[in-house]
């Protein structure tokens, strides 16, 4: 038994965070190896290291027994390692042959690209993949699943013997997933080695020969598929340390402020949110969790009005807000700390002041007609900075020059100081230090105790457990469970999260 890839003590540190911690991964040649883990467990970083897109801080890699240094994707390809990214890397306007041979076109008569030769090879690969696609049309005209397979074909064309797939099924419908898995099996039978990153237990189970589980950057186990149970894997993924508890006053149920009734969201032929119903009461933190990409993001976007409701109703303070635009919902009392503070939560090229007044600037306090009250905005911004301990040397510096934690405090300060009765807080402690995390959590509890209704979305089970009064779990667009921290445990939540269990709500 030889190893296609073997890593020794791979460690990768970004700033203060350890993405991979002394990982020893062994991938058997000619097998399908699934790498499981929650979001942020370090899966993608590890794979990028194998493909030369990232350099490890320390550790060694061996490919087929030979120690190697993979400095770039080109070097990885020379070692016959191919990477199929989550986002497609095809030129939509080009045909399959043009995409496959881009930059390595065979020549005829010195200067002309020889697409005849290319297409012959392409045809062989498509036959192998059992995918009869037209060679004379641009790949942009293919469906998502067809393009996914074309991506795999591209790696094969470039001589990949070891294929790394990053969450290949995340964009596919269930039927198409089966087809993709079939193709991967076929490739294995042809002698290829496949490493598949996934957070879907079912897939890992149905296809892998070996399964490795990463948790918080460490490889916690590699087990043969035949001798492992789903429950074992769930325990490995979520861990079994006792859950931490934050001291907080008992839960005072107020009236329901937000009522979501049978909400569905469709987009691009996919059901992103399916018939979700729940309510959040005043004085309650409702924790919504699930593995990333199971509809939580789309659900929040629909609640705040950034995404259209397909079916169902959203009642806020007794009024149906489905038809309201974003501003109207904000003015009427919805504040939102978004999941991605750089893409959505701030404009990093603008000043701290400009970032702090967003959403406040159209409230009556800050303008007269359409003239903004500069002095008032400045003193207000100073106040947020002081109260939320944002370390910024002045209001005029670019928000982009703040550290991640300070930027997060800026966003939280801005949204919390709206003094709305309802808050949506998504992944508040992502990528920030422990001190800031503790601060954010105590703020959330303070707001809850003052009668605010809070929808907390997080993938961090510790955070969900310690803060929530009730917990909802989403899987595949559905709200599969609503429970309380007292009546559940880490393992049971893990089961809900991977879809192997559900309750009747």
């Amino acid at each position, binding site marked *: 038994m030889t190893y296609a890839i073997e890593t020794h003590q791979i460690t990768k540190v970004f700033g203060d965070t350890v993405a991979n911690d002394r990982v020893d991964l062994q991938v058997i040649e000619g097998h399908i190896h699934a790498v499981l883990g929650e979001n942020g467990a370090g899966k993608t970083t590890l794979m990028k290291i194998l493909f030369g897109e990232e350099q490890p801080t320390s550790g060694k890699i061996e490919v087929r027994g030979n120690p190697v240094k993979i400095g770039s994707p080109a070097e990885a390809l020379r070692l016959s390692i191919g990477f199929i990214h989550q986002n497609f890397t095809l030129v939509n306007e080009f045909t399959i042959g043009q995409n496959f041979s881009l930059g390595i076109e065979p020549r005829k008569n010195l200067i002309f690209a020889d697409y005849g030769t290319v297409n012959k090879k392409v045809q062989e690969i498509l036959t192998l993949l059992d995918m009869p696609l037209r060679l004379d049309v641009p790949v942009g005209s293919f469906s998502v699943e067809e393009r996914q397979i074309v991506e795999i074909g591209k790696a094969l064309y470039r001589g990949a013997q070891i294929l790394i797939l990053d969450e290949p099924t995340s964009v596919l419908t269930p039927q198409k997933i089966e087809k993709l898995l079939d193709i991967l099996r076929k490739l294995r039978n042809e002698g290829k080695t496949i490493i598949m990153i996934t957070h879907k237990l079912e897939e890992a189970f149905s296809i892998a020969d070996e399964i490795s589980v990463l948790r918080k950057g460490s490889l916690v186990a590699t087990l043969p598929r035949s001798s492992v149970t789903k429950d074992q894997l769930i325990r490995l993924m979520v861990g079994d340390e006792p859950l931490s508890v934050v001291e907080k006053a008992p839960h005072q149920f107020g009236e329901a402020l937000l009522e979501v009734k049978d909400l569905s969201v469709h987009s691009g032929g996919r059901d992103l949110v399916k018939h979700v119903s729940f309510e959040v009461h005043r004085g309650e933190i409702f924790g919504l969790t699930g593995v990333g990409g199971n509809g939580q993001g789309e659900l929040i976007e629909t609640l705040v009005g950034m995404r259209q409701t397909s079916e169902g109703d959203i009642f806020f303070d007794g009024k149906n807000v489905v038809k309201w635009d974003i501003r109207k919902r904000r003015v009427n009392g919805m504040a939102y700390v978004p999941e991605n503070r750089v893409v959505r*939560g701030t404009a*990093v*090229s*603008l000043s701290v002041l400009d970032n702090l007044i967003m959403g406040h*600037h159209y409230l009556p306090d800050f303008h007269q007609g359409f*003239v903004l009250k500069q002095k008032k905005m400045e003193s207000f911004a100073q106040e947020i900075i002081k109260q939320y301990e944002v370390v910024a040397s*002045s209001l005029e510096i670019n928000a982009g020059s703040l550290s991640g934690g300070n930027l997060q405090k800026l966003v939280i300060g801005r949204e919390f100081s709206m003094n709305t009765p309802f808050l949506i807080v998504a992944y508040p402690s992502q990528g920030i230090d422990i001190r800031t995390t503790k601060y954010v959590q105590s703020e959330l509890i303070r707001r809850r105790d003052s009668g605010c209704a809070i929808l907390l979305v997080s993938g961090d089970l510790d955070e969900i457990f310690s803060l929530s009064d009730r917990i909802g779990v989403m899987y595949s667009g559905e709200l599969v469970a609503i429970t309380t921290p007292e009546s559940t445990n880490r393992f049971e939540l893990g089961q809900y999260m991977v879809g192997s269990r559900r309750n009747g709500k």
Partner: protein
Amino acid sequence: MKATNKIRRTIFQQGLSFISTIALALLLGFAMLWLNGSAPKDVLAAAGSSTFASSFRFANMVSRMITIVLVSLAAAIPFKAGVWNIGGDGQLAMGGFFAALVGVYVTGLPPVMHIGLAVIAGMIGGALWATIPAYVRLKFKANEIVTTIMMNYLAALVTGYLVNYPFRAPGSANAETSLVQESAVLTQMVPLSNLSTGLYIVIVMFILICFLDWKTSWGYEWRVLGSNDEFARYGGVKDNRMRFLSMLIGGALAGLAGTILVLGSYHKFILNMGGGIGFTGVLIAIIAANSPILILIVSAIFAILSNSTVGLEARLGVATEFSSILQSVIILLVITRSNIWAGITKLLKRR
């Protein structure tokens, strides 16, 4: 306290690098002419006298400058909001035409009202011409770079038809309208020059635009929209409405440029009177990073440069194209200035 000093220093450095880059470009221009056999002393004298030797020449420079300022702002305001307005030429033409119609065919009004009406008509004309690309961008996601350029050609053709046939001045050999009524003429400020009291309108408009940019929620929302539209939408900015508005204002400013050419300089609408100045406006908006104050400075430099060509040609026999070459050199150097200065700093450090 330290922080504000640091900011002041950054602004100072930015300004210094901007101005020194333009100085560098001018030096290059001198060098080119020197190689061509003209002594720098003579060049300076010839160029300087074209603008500063008489109040008449200076007035012509200012007249050119206000047109450039307006078309630059017409590009800069939409740029701020993340929309590309390359249609300044078409908007200028339509604005000028609308103003000419009011100026020629409305009679019996006192001057203040007649001019006011013509100015409003001109701004509406420019704005209307901008709404078409703005609308198709927002409704059908048609690329506004393409559509605004297309609208320039369309404006030239439409006004070309109108002043060749229905509105042609009786007996005129050129494609132009009749002269506007006496009551619609903006008074000449310096005898024989192109400069009119339209200058005051532009000063008021410039202050208004600065105010809009710095002090109002419109300016704020444009700024946010231009730097991160996802953040703007998240924060409740009505993104499409604000983009549309920025195009309307841009179109109105270009229309005003046309109006002042008609009411102040030519006293009639002449086909292609803008002469492609809209593109100059786009370039200036880019090198001035959409800042009104920098637009003012760069517009002055460009106006002086294009004024200088006359003197250079008459006295030293330098081709008129030289001014365009120098303008291009300035644009290239300003756009790449951060790289140039980084390179120079590195060189100095190595020594």
